[in-house]
């Protein structure tokens, strides 16, 4: 019996824009359902526009760089629908954790969500009001997402040197803020 989610992705991988339209039409409801549920269970003041942004990012993530992420789908591992559920959940969690609309086609979506299983969103350990929004994002991408400097530069559309410079300034601010505080063992 044919399932609602049976879909041949080969034309999408070959760059057929009509196939991509059909793909989005077929799976937008599923991705939206997952993003909405993941975000609704973790954030009370949910903004529907943010859910839309996450859904948009999921499809961008799948299509970017010659559909690198979708190309990595392995039907012997799981169904296409499950693959999309995992990507959608990871993208929604990245947004909730880091305020980061992740359109990067990296395969870390498959492992990086591991620690939020309790339903709680892990709060980064940076003290409030010390870093600028940009410094905060760069530090999260470097230390929480563990992306390389080059990847962070690409995500933010800046040079690697600028990323290093932002990190350097953030580290200086944090060191200044925390000096004198005792360490624990």
């Amino acid at each position, binding site marked *: 019996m044919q399932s609602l989610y049976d879909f041949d992705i080969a034309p999408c991988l070959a760059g057929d*824009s009509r196939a991509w339209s059909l793909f989005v039409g077929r799976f937008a409801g599923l991705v939206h359902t997952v993003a909405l549920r993941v975000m609704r269970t973790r954030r009370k003041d949910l903004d529907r526009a943010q859910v839309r942004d996450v859904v948009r990012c999921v499809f961008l993530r799948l299509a970017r760089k010659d559909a690198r992420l979708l190309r990595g789908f392995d039907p012997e591992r799981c169904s296409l629908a499950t693959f999309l559920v995992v990507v959608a959940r990871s993208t929604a969690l990245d947004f909730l954790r880091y305020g980061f609309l992740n359109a990067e086609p990296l395969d870390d979506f498959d492992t990086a969500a591991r620690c939020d299983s309790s339903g709680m969103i892990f709060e980064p350990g940076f003290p409030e009001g010390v870093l600028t929004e940009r410094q905060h994002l760069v530090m999260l991408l470097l230390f929480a997402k563990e992306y390389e400097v080059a990847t962070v530069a690409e995500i933010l559309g800046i040079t690697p040197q600028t990323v290093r410079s932002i990190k350097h300034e953030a580290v200086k601010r*944090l060191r200044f803020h925390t000096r004198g505080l005792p360490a624990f063992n």
Partner: protein
Amino acid sequence: MFPKTRNAAVARTWDREGNGELLLWSRRRSQRREDCAAMTEIGGYLERVLSPADRERVENHVAECEACRHEMVELYQLLKAPLELAPHGLAGDIAAELVQCLNPASMARAAQGAKS
């Protein structure tokens, strides 16, 4: 003894030069294990599409890893969730945006490369 508050963790982190920065996320990392199953594998386990050997490996791991058990439960709930319709016009807007970022020539080459 100094309590292990977030501030204390930050203090320890930034008191050290260089590698000390990595301690910031030690709490987070401690919940992830090297042998944790990938989420897609856990999904494949729930769908019963894994090979018997992979199925047994995931099953043995999940039996002893609380984090993966939680992941499995949430994934199961997501897979079983009733489908909600996407907001009107969302799919069309996304499809229009995707067309802009597709490069058919380069993608066809990549698809050809994957086949050979």
